[in-house]
């Protein structure tokens, strides 16, 4: 999981399939990011923000009671304990610092459930930047609380009324908007998708999850490295960041997708939102809308590096249903006292299903990234539990 270099490729996936008007802007982001990551000053400033504002490092929590029930040793990487409540803040602090370094005065973002939008609004406020967040009208109705949080933080939230009025359309609208304002605005993509350098850059900003977890596993686990590393996958940023920390180990990677948004497990080769990857499509090549109870997994594709890891057999991608995810959320709440985001509950649902079987033999050590906390999902869960 290295540098995709000049052509921005992960195997055959990735690339910079951007409209000509955005190609130069992507090149500038790439150049600025390469300079910044080599600059100790930038790295130091980001590390300080991650520590003092976002609350890193996050703990590695052994899930003791649930482990006993399942017969495996389950450790949770607690991204739910970061400021703003999910891993999204790791990427956004990095990109916001980069935007300020590039002299941009405004951040543009897309958001589904609102977690990336809230993180962007937060980072913008912290660094004195403006923020404009595109959000599907349907998601605005479902996530009223996050809309208010963004506005309270000073961000402008623009409803997207086209297409399915969810994340896919919010992403399209953010790209359209960016074309007209590349000179003063940075597009802060929220996942490991989009034109090069975004899939790589976002993974690099998220690898703090995997790097921290690697050190924590070395200190806590008898074997030093877990047998399995598990994370949920929408676009796939928390999974990519987690996997990156264990790329040179023998740990087996499992990405867990929503049954209705399984880009890696069931997608076909395509190009959307600037990158070549796997997308859910109909027989005519039109992109199919995703459906998941977890808004953060409601994306019809997957980041290009995941498509590549799938082809290599380095990671496997599995799916769980809405019901399984809700069941897993309840179980974690009652055994460990943690209410997870429904996205993260997908990863747990696979662990619960697989534990004791051939995929996850009894006694295995499992590291699972708990990507976010469940507060945003309380009204959804209230209807179901």
């Amino acid at each position, binding site marked *: 999981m290295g540098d995709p270099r000049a052509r921005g490729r992960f195997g055959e996936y990735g690339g910079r399939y951007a409209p000509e*008007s955005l*190609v130069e802007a992507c090149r500038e982001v790439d150049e600025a990011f390469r300079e910044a990551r080599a600059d100790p000053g930038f790295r130091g400033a980001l590390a300080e923000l991650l520590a003092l504002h976002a609350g890193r490092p996050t703990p590695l929590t052994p899930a003791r009671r649930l482990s006993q029930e399942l017969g495996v040793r389950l450790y949770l990487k607690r991204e739910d304990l970061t400021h703003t409540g999910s891993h999204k803040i790791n990427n956004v602090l990095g990109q916001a610092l980069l935007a300020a370094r590039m002299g941009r005065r405004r951040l543009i973002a897309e958001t589904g459930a609102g977690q990336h939008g809230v993180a962007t609004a937060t980072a913008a406020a912290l660094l004195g930047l403006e923020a404009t967040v595109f959000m599907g009208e349907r998601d605005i109705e479902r996530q009223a609380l996050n809309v208010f949080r963004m506005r309270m933080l000073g961000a402008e939230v623009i409803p997207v009324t086209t297409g399915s009025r969810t994340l896919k359309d919010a992403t399209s609208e953010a790209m359209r908007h960016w074309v*007209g304002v590349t000179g003063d605005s940075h597009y802060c993509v929220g996942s490991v998708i989009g034109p090069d350098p975004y899939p790589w850059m976002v993974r690099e900003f998220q690898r703090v999850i995997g790097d921290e977890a690697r050190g924590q596993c070395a200190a806590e686990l008898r074997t030093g490295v877990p047998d399995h590393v598990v994370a949920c996958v929408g676009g796939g940023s928390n999974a990519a960041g987690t996997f990156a920390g264990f790329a040179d180990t023998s740990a087996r990677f499992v990405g867990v997708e929503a049954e209705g948004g399984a880009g890696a497990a069931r997608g076909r080769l395509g190009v959307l939102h600037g990158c070549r990857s796997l997308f859910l499509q109909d027989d005519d090549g039109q*992109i199919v809308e995703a459906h998941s109870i977890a808004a953060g997994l409601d994306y019809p594709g997957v980041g290009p590096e995941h498509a590549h890891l799938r082809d290599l057999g380095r990671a496997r991608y599995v799916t769980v249903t809405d019901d399984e995810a809700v069941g897993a959320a309840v179980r974690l709440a009652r055994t460990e006292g943690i209410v997870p985001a429904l996205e993260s509950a997908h990863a747990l649902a696979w662990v619960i299903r697989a534990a004791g079987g051939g995929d996850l033999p009894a006694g295995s050590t499992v590291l699972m990234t708990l990507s976010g906390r469940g507060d945003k999902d309380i009204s959804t869960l209230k209807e179901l539990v």
Partner: protein
Amino acid sequence: MTNILAPGAVERHLRARRDTGRGLLMPYVTGGVTPGWTRYLKAFVEAGADAIELGLPFSDPTLDGATIQQASDTALARGASTRRILADLAEVRDLGVPLVASTYYNLVLHDGPEAFCAALRRAGVSGLIVPDLPVHEADEMTDVAAAAGVELVLLASPATPRERLEEISRRSRGFVYAVSLMGTTGERAALAASAAELTARIRRGTDRPVLLGFGISTPDQAREAGRYADGVVVGAAVMRRVLDGAGPDDLRAFLATLRRALDQE
């Protein structure tokens, strides 16, 4: 064996017309947008179109503004697909001007570049515009398209740096599509200042026809664009009328006003 460096049918046609001193007019229609949509093609030719851009609708048109988005949604809701739109073209053989398809790269990859280009050619389409296939990603398409007899048109933007602009001008086939402004497709009140500058920059590197698109919606804008570009592409101004219920006769009348404006220059 085709000589892939020789100008193709679209370029020869546009050059011949340009060389008579004529300002080129390329109207756009979204395939499948209405039940009898191919009648628009005939109306365009009767109004004096020199080529026609045929949009193959995609579910996620990320470079299009509200009008073309709505036209794409309307066509897809009617059951339009690349296959059906190309089949519909059997109704209008021998239009007398080249048809240039435009669509997003996902639809090309879905069939595979070879099969996609072959299908275009069989249906009588001789050019292709793919706005999310910039020149540095176009390698897998250029030879395949040329071998199929489909001219792959590349887009240039006001943000394109000089060396890259030279590469686009050199590798584009049919014509060079100059994107007049930093924005999406859609009608605008005035022609952007960037349009004249971009056209002049492209001209320094090629004598291939240069058509200006994005935002050109009135006779005055067409006239102004005709002063420096070889012609104009008119999309959203056509499709807004189509979406409002205008028929082929209405569009013939509208495009005739643009034709006259270009002829006055």
